[in-house]
């Protein structure tokens, strides 16, 4: 998963973190994954706001929502909150 760990001489002093967590993919945590029916979706963006992992993105250039399965943990909040029942949790 990670490359060889660094020695005490190689790391900056005082433990300043040097990798953004976006390099740590949590997508493999999920058992169920959210699947969206774009026909039912009203683009209310509630799922984008409520996702604890920021794994649902609003793409203004596409005027649409995209799921980032690299980070989705399959909690099901998006499916539960969707006012138009557009999201179903399906077994991975």
């Amino acid at each position: 998963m990670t490359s060889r760990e660094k020695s005490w001489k190689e790391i900056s002093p005082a433990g300043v973190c040097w990798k953004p967590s976006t390099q740590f993919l949590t997508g493999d945590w999920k058992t169920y994954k959210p699947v969206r029916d774009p026909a039912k979706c009203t683009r209310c963006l509630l799922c984008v706001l409520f996702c604890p992992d920021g794994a649902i993105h609003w793409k203004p250039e596409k005027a649409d929502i995209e799921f980032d399965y690299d980070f989705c943990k399959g909690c099901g909040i998006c499916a539960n909150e969707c006012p138009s029942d557009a999201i179903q949790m399906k077994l991975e």
Partner: protein
Amino acid sequence: MQTEWKFTAKDIAEKPDLFLSGHRACAGCAPATVLRLIMKAVRGPTIVTNATGCMEVASSIYPYTSWATPWIHTAFETAAANASGIEIALKILKKKGRIKQEQIDVIALAGDGGTYDIGIQALSGAVERGHDFLFVLYDNEAYMNTGIQRSGGTPFGASTTTSQAGTAVPGKLEQKKPIADIMVAHDMPYVATASPNYWQDFIKKVRKGIEVNGPAFLHVFAPCPRGWRSDPAKSIELSRLAVETCVFPLWEAVDGEYQLSIPSRVFALAPQKKKPVKEYLEMQGRFRHLFTPKYEKILDEIQQITDAKWNKLLKKCGMTQPAKAT
């Protein structure tokens, strides 16, 4: 007190996340949602300090970090003390011409441990001294990071590992400490409660807390599916039910003047819409024992306590419950 900032869901959705994906919070963690939304509410350069707890640990496992802002963690009880140090350092360094930014906001984040209990001294002191910072309590109602032990914020009747529901004792016997009211009693400029389900109200309050000159305190309701033994998919729903049952009413106190927030106002004006507390409790495993014959009387007690607190709050807000229709 109003903020001039107007925003839509799209505006919020388009703002880049300053609390990055890839943190190690549990699936369905409402505090994680809370933190994401807080960071969407920042208005400019911001420094964040975090007390030890779930969100701190989940977001800063060396060498990874989920913070796109400058961020420091020191200890469990020190969120407000850190914020004090950062705030005065910024002031004096600006005076000495060593900081180029016009304004840097300071936000202190802590869970219920770092706020109600071990952190209350530093919080009270920082507020008394009038430092200009926002303190946000993400309340998951127990010491979750160390394994779900009871805190001053754990509600009456909840089962935690140190207030277990057993054959002799029905969970926690003490009431939830009214932390937000305690902060109002500090005569501080801004105190508010919020719930992630009501995201507009929440984000607006964060922004107000940042904008106010002086200390601000925000108490945010943040369900923990792991500790509450609830369905991870229902964390936001629980934060809605808590408001609908008036277990966690939403209000603001600007210079000590209480005002009920819009999401809670409907239940003051139309009390028949208020949902029974039972509906909220039955979704959580930590209250499961209350649905057994031995302890079911406690459900009534909880309903009465909730109603009493709600009525007290209404009085403070200058709204009384309309008399029951005859």
